[in-house]
């Protein structure tokens, strides 16, 4: 594997990893709220998140380009064609799948755990943490699914990142680009690396699910 290839692989992991971290900062509170409380409209909100899991990446890409472009509403931030733009896009992209999987993981925790923690004198925050720790398998599975979705998507990275060499070029955009410029060998190499990453993470997730 050439040095350039390694650089692109690392950048992909870095960008999608950052997207996952950011996404968790709002997905965790949202999921705890949805998973632990009962209120009118809760099911509707959950179905909306579920429906958005299939949000087409190109549609999100074009919306973000319209926002980030110099002519767009957020143009003055100068975000178009930066890694930050890809991170924002992927963080939004994985939000529905994270919320959906986290919420069902949290829901499946026996309510008595939370009550027990509280009777033992835990604060509300500590009780939530106890729930999360009980749901850790589901939480990790949600994280892996979200990361796989992010690292394997093309639309957002291509449109808001433009595959700039040494800057915003990630595995999926380079696979498309090398195919377009006739460098099929490199394209196939990258596809194999991408598949290896996604498969090994999925395998890990399956192992977690079993025990």
């Amino acid at each position: 594997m050439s040095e350039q290839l390694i650089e692109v692989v690392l950048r992909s992991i870095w960008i999608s990893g950052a997207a996952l971290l950011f996404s968790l900062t709002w997905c965790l509170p949202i999921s705890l709220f949805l998973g632990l409380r009962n209120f009118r409209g809760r099911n509707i909100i959950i179905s909306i998140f579920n429906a958005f899991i299939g949000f087409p990446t190109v549609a999100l890409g074009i919306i973000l380009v319209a926002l980030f472009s110099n002519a767009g509403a957020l143009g003055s931030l100068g975000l178009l064609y930066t890694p930050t733009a890809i991170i924002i896009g992927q963080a939004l992209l994985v939000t529905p799948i994270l919320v959906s999987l986290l919420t069902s993981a949290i829901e499946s925790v026996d309510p008595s755990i939370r009550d027990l923690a509280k009777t033992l004198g835990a604060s509300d925050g500590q009780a939530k943490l106890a729930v999360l720790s009980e749901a850790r398998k589901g939480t990790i599975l949600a994280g892996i699914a979200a990361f796989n979705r992010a690292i394997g998507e093309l639309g957002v990275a291509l449109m808001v990142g433009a595959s700039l060499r040494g800057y915003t070029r990630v595995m999926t955009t380079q696979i498309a680009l090398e195919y377009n410029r006739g460098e099929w060998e490199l394209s196939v190499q990258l596809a194999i690396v991408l598949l290896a990453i996604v498969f090994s993470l999925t395998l890990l997730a399956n192992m977690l699910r079993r025990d």
Partner: protein
Amino acid sequence: MNKLALILVVLVIAGVSAVAAIELSGRTVPRLKVSTTTSLFDTGLLDNIADEYLNNYGVRLDVISLGTGPALDQAGSGDVDVTFVHSPTLENLFLTDNSGGARKIIAYNFFAIIGPDEDPAGIENLSTIAALQKIAETKAEWVSRDDNSGTNTKEKALWKSVGFPDFTALYEENWFTATGQGMGATLVVANEHRGYTITDTGTYLKYFNDNLINLKTFVSSGKDLLNVYSVMAANPVDNRENVDFQGAIDFIEYLISDNGQSFIGNFGVAEYGAPLFNPAVQLLKENADSEIATWIRDTAFFENSECPQQYRLGQEQLYQ
């Protein structure tokens, strides 16, 4: 502070430092944003120019590869600083609506009409127009990029002179296939379908030499297949005030310098035995009477100039 809040804070810090690290790693040198037509990119010319420019001038080029139409749009919206294109018709519109200027013609080559060896339409040795007429008459498959690129603009003009003034009317023909993709992908489709298409010679030679396609060149010279590449800077007014205008002009000066021109002219010689792009600056400067210089003036000049005075954005030194 409870632990949950702590987890969230740690996530935010980790995320922010990841972003900072990746942004900083890419921003150690000044950058110039460049949009380009696919042929200059897919052949590898712009990656090579980017390396050369970084090594000698310390500026990194961020190259975004698109068809000519979208490449011009990027410069028009101020999302890139410089644009490389090859469609005089679209360039003229770009200049007249003040989206950019300081246009310099930097290189030329020829488009080619290519197709399967068997030549089902029998276009061997015909002129461009006669060849297209023959393809339409015999209903031999034609594959079009249909992506508003420079090549596609040329194709539309050619079909117009053959009797299809409305390009979209071709969609109704069962021998016509529109890919909506770049040159490379379109070449592959034409190869699979054993159809004819129009291509820039650079991309064709690369695909042909790498054995990705085995289509044959049937027509590849003449004024109506001339392919002229130019470069323009985004005009730093209106919504484009944050483009790097000086950086763009410096880069254009490099491209038209003897160094830049010989770099373009030598590109691909080692690999393909002939240049993929012929330098145009000296040819036009000498006011040479050569046939090709005349063709360039006839097809790619506006008001008898490669860039009329009012669109030079004060950069007269580029035209001396």
